[in-house]
């Protein structure tokens, strides 16, 4: 059972496992690698993430749960017990310093560049060229070679507040909860800016996974709460392509081999 820790209070071992796992996956150019997983959400086409779109909107939470689960399995193939920490952007610390230190410091303790701060984009050169020629998307990546992820965050106190989450937790239906949480989630993408700000590039930024780990954690908490409900029955057997998993199979995280550690005070 892997334990997802608080990114702002992550243990040294957990942080080292995370960095080692991301570095290992960045060295893989096949379907187990970091670039492959980042590209599922965005470029190269097809863009396969599920956000609010017509009848699909309530697949946002289960699709991203499956997404993180499959990345985490690949991480654990490389580094035993590696897990994706969650970034609580409502915490007092986040409202003072913004991104967790582990994701913002320039260097790792050994002096190498911090893999959690920025990674290269493993897209084919023609995609990089198209991004750089694009009036909007060119701001999502660095101008140097190789192209790397970048951020341009807003002031920390602009992050969502705990009060907003309390409101979301009062949602009377699964659809309502999902829509409200997705809305706040989108604001955090915009807050980080750069690579995270647009769908086609967002998942290349390492903070993406910890942002969604927190979204998943919140869904898990809501599921445990008196208000928690499953998605409508007609959706339970929908397959969350490209993952060979149905909505029903995502509903209990204990069946997916991970849990959340949330007793560490911030």
């Amino acid at each position, binding site marked *: 059972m892997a334990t997802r820790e608080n990114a702002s209070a992550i243990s040294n071992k957990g942080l080292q496992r995370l960095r080692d796992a991301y570095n290992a996956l960045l060295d893989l150019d096949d379907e187990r690698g970091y670039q492959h997983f980042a590209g599922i959400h965005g470029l190269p086409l097809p863009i396969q993430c599920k956000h609010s779109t017509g009848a699909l909107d309530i697949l946002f939470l289960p699709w991203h749960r499956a997404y993180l689960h499959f990345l985490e399995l690949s991480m654990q193939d490389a580094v035993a017990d590696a897990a994706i920490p969650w970034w609580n952007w409502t915490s007092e610390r986040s409202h003072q310093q913004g991104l967790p230190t582990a994701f913002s410091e320039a260097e790792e303790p050994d002096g190498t560049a911090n893999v959690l701060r920025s990674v290269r984009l493993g897209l084919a050169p023609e995609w990089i060229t198209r991004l750089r020629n694009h009036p909007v998307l060119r701001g999502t990546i660095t101008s140097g070679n190789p192209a790397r992820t970048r951020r341009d965050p807003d002031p920390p106190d602009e992050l969502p507040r705990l009060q907003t989450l309390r409101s979301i937790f009062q949602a009377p239906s699964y659809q309502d909860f999902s829509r409200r949480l997705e809305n706040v989630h989108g604001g955090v993408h915009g807050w980080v800016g*750069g690579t995270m*700000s647009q769908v086609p590039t967002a998942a290349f930024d390492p903070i993406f996974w910890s942002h969604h780990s927190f979204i998943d954690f919140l869904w898990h908490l809501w599921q445990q709460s008196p208000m928690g409900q499953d998605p409508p029955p007609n959706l339970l057997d929908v397959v969350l392509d490209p993952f060979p998993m149905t909505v029903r199979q995502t509903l209990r995280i204990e069946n997916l081999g991970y849990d959340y550690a949330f007793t560490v005070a911030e």
Partner: protein
Amino acid sequence: MAASGECTKSGGKRKGILHLALAVTLDDDNIDFGRADLIFEGVDHSQISYEVRVFLNNKRVDHTTEREVERGYAGRFIVFGHGGCMGGRGHCDPDYRQTSPFDHRPPHPLLPQTKIVHAAGALMHLYEAGKPLKSVTMVPVLLAPNRKDRTLADGVFRFETVRLKLYPNTVSVMNIVPV
């Protein structure tokens, strides 16, 4: 319970800002709402990411206006955008697809979205001041990659309809899914 009326849509003095003139009076018969949703349907999300800040009865707002209920701020919604089409002809056009009973593909990912602003607090603020709801002003703000570009968005926010729906203040009815 629903409050609705004929709306007049007009552009603001600042590019991108939209005003809807309404005629909704809340009296003691329909004030017993536990929830008030402004429901935007047909919202486009094919371009750059943006947010829409919604103000009631205050047309003199822009992206710098403080988000406080005293200024009529009702809430905001976020559109996490696809950044424009990166595919070939018809790739990002949901209508390009043929319809067929044998089509088992998932729905087109760029079908328009429905966005909801929970406006009960702002609406109650108006009621308590004895004021009717006269206008809804939408301020679109770019969520651009670069912070310096996070300003008024002109031409990005496109939607088909907006409705105000009030829910009676009873727990059982709160389970109604907004349509």
